[in-house]
């Protein structure tokens, strides 16, 4: 979806949001119709809404509520980043075109490989490129309490670097780690884990 389409959808969602909020405010009495006198030509019919019966009011509020939720959903989808639209790293370029890979895909490989290393409980990774174009992975590890932090960190770095290079063909310059121990699970299962 290009930028113009996305902006149009966001604008549509905002209009829907505003219309539904105004409708709900009018029928529930939160907004006096006199306040909308400037828009008489456009919304003259709305003035009759406060005289509706209870069931009709509930129907209008429910309808406006649905529009409100849909508008919020559309707005959320337009604002958040989509899969496939993140930064891409060039893997190869030749006369027949390019091979690129998303940053998230590289991070996912690192996370998967790192998560299988003994003693590692949780991993969060991000990928970036340095000035020379090499990959820099930054990972946050949660280790089991009985694990030697330095040794596990070293093992993680070596394994992740080797695997990411093998799978992607990119050169990994650094694997930066931020490590910590899992606290809550320590008491429950920490003593049972042998590494």
């Amino acid at each position, binding site marked *: 979806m290009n930028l113009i389409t996305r902006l149009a959808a966001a604008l549509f969602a905002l209009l829907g949001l505003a219309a539904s909020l105004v409708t709900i405010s009018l029928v529930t009495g939160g907004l006096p119709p006199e306040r909308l006198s400037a828009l008489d030509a456009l919304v003259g019919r709305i003035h009759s809404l406060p005289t509706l019966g209870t069931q009709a009011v509930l129907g209008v509020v429910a309808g406006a509520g649905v529009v409100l939720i849909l508008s919020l959903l559309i707005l959320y989808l337009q604002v958040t980043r*989509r*899969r*496939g639209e993140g930064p*891409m790293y060039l*893997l*190869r370029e030749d006369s*027949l*075109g*390019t*091979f*690129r*890979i*998303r940053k*998230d*895909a590289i991070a*996912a*490989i690192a996370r*998967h490989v790192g998560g299988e290393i003994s003693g590692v409980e949780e991993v969060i990774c991000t990928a970036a490129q340095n000035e020379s174009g090499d990959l820099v992975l930054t990972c946050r590890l949660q280790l089991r309490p009985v694990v030697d932090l330095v040794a596990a960190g070293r093992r993680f770095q070596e394994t992740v670097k080797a695997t990411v290079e*093998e*799978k*992607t*063909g990119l050169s990994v310059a650094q694997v930066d780690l931020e490590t910590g121990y899992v606290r809550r699970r320590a008491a429950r299962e920490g003593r049972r884990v042998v590494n």
Partner: protein
Amino acid sequence: MSDMKGKTFLTNEVVNQIAGFAARTVSGVHRLGKANLIDRIKGGKAMDAGMKAEVGAEEVAFDIDLIVTYGHPVQEVAENLRIAISTQVKTMLARNVVECNINVIGVHFEDDEEPAPEAPAPRVK
């Protein structure tokens, strides 16, 4: 001998479908493009999802979004995909693929998949 004249037009959709079908035969290709809501409802994979073809009278160019299966070298999968698509398009449409840009937008891990339901017990011994 027939002297009938006419033109055959190819829509982008057909070219996308042919390329999408070729892609399915490549090892390491999990799927093309992201799974959208309609695909999920249908329970299948659209054959031309993730493909954008530009079709000329003699040549074709592609932009492809790819999700690879974990364990396969990404560049090897992309290269095999490019070869498979070029070959199939050349064979079926008699057009050369002059450009094929492949964007790896995700990695699929086998353990992400839901376990297959157990086979029902046989009714006969």
